[in-house]
């Protein structure tokens, strides 16, 4: 393992750059030799990867230049300083273009990008620190946890990022993951502002979502929706929690599992999946899960909101006089392909004590399409997308929205 130069304490994106020895013009290499720095000196300074990087190494280079040249006079009629600065600026621009100012002067991370060993527990602390800072700036981990230690919090943040970036979930920072971080992380020193609705919706770092599919449909339509949903969840990296997996259930705060509810998890998300039919246990299970969830996704052909919604799915609107202790402060309700109408929405909202927003589609679609809409809603929630993203899930179907994620300007400004 090569030793990694620590970024100086006063490091900032504007005072750091790098020079690639092999990319230096021959004229500049000759001028440096004339000023007392041979090509061998340059290679010694650059080390294994042939790059002179960071303020310390660049200062070291200048210290080797003989006195008159160090005073920034021209060598062979050309300004040595300007020529080196042009190299630094060009490389900085290249790093900027690739979004990689955070990483491209770190040889360990450059090695990862070039297919070397991925970053994981016990990896170089400085490199881990840089990755953690990027994850923190993306809003995926708390700044207090940025410590250079590739621990459980780091792994969780990496997994969540991999899920959002549609990458295989490996918990390690490999070349695709680092490449995606370069592309997605905001410039150093800035943070991506997460929509406050999501902060209100999530408990800690976890969003609990109830998915109820097929309400009121014939058995065969529920079966189709169920098969589509299961395939879609597996494709997205969700894992089903076995009823026997007591440790995971307890970790999720679910010591008493309801057998009518299937529990799935992915980093940052816990799903309660119910396929409600007309049986009382399934209706009750749907109701309980929905009341305690941060987001509720319903889909069903004959599913309507209001009295019918209540009777078919078991969702009991929370009474203002008796708010549920489990009720979240904020709840997103998405309804798909259910014939919902504005009056029914009003009835539901009027009877709801928590701050609930409704996003519904009145389009009559097939059961598989409804399952895909629910999966699309899940994707938007997982990446904390905007109202426009939710509308896009519904495509051409008639959609109503009530202000959810209306302050999209936060994201625009942050980007």
């Amino acid at each position, binding site marked *: 393992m090569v030793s990694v130069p620590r970024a100086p304490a006063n490091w900032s994106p504007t005072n750091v750059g790098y020079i690639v020895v092999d990319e230096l013009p021959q004229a500049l290499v000759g001028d440096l030799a004339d000023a007392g720095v041979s090509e061998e000196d340059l290679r010694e300074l650059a080390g294994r990867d042939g790059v002179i990087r960071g303020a310390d190494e660049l200062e070291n280079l200048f210290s080797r230049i003989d006195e008159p040249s160090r005073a920034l006079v021209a060598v062979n009629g050309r300004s040595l300083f300007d020529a080196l600065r042009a190299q630094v600026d060009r490389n900085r621009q290249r790093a900027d273009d690739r979004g990689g100012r955070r990483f491209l002067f770190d040889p360990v991370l450059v090695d990862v990008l070039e297919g070397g060993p991925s970053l994981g527990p016990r990896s170089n602390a400085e490199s881990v620190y840089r990755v953690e800072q990027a994850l923190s700036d993306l809003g995926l981990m708390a700044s207090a946890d940025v410590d250079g230690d590739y621990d459980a919090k780091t792994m969780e943040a990496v997994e969540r990022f991999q899920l959002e970036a549609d990458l295989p979930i490996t918990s390690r920072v490999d070349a695709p993951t680092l490449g995606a971080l370069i592309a997605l992380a905001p410039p150093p020193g800035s943070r991506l502002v997460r929509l406050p609705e999501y902060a209100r919706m999530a408990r800690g770092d976890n969003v609990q979502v109830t998915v109820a599919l097929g309400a009121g449909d014939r058995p*065969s339509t529920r*079966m*189709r929706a169920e*098969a589509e949903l*299961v395939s879609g969840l597996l494709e997205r990296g969700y894992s089903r929690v076995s009823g026997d997996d007591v440790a995971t259930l307890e970790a999720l705060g679910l010591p008493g599992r309801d057998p*009518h509810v299937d529990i799935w998890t992915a980093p940052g998300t816990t799903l309660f999946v119910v396929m409600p039919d007309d*049986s009382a*246990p*399934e209706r009750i299970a749907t109701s309980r899960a929905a009341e305690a969830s941060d987001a509720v996704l319903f889909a069903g*052909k004959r599913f309507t909101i209001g009295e019918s919604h209540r009777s078919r799915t078991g969702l009991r609107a929370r009474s203002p006089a008796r708010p549920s202790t489990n009720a979240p402060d904020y709840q997103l309700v998405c309804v798909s392909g259910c014939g919902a109408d504005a009056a029914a929405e009003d009835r539901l909202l009027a009877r709801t004590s928590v701050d609930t927003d409704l996003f519904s589609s009145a389009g009559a679609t097939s059961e598989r399409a409804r399952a895909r809409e629910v999966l699309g809603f899940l994707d938007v929630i997982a990446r904390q997308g905007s109202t426009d993203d939710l509308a896009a899930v519904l495509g051409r179907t008639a959609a109503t929205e009530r202000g959810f994620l209306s302050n999209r300007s936060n994201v625009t400004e942050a980007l």
Partner: protein
Amino acid sequence: MVAIAPDVRSALAVLQDDRASEAERIRAVTIVSDFGGSGIVFPLAVEYAAADGSLKTTLAYALGRLDATSVLASELAYGDARTRARAAELLSLFNEDAATRALVGALRDPDTDVRINAAYALGDHQDPSTLTALTEGMRSDTVPAVRSACALALAALPGPGARAALETAAQHEDVVSVIILIERAIQRRIDRGEAE
């Protein structure tokens, strides 16, 4: 397919228009069913699946007059792949012995979509006599989506045997999505009070 006269086509358009009143749609059913022929069984059956109240009753009567089960069973046997798949899906609405027999036969159809639709349709029929065919489909079909559909259909099948078939299949299945759906099917039977 039989050519449909323009006035019948207009009536079909009214029937399929959600903005039309129930009375207008019932009148449209009468016009369409008087025309007769196999070509209108499909659109009437589609509307029947979504209808309720008096419209559903009227559609049921019309489909009975048109001998919809025989028409769809014939299309399931002799139509092209797309028609067969549609016929299998719509036969789920007609819980009659002839329909069930046709669907059991369709579990061996060369087309995957037909086999999937037949399995799901049998899930609606819930006829204990289909246990063997669904078990065989879940055990030996080469397409995971067909095995999943058979497993889900077995979840709803009354009588003994389905639970054991599901548990045996769970031990031999190696596709994760199918295993999960089999486990859910078993759970569903337990939920309904079936003994371990």
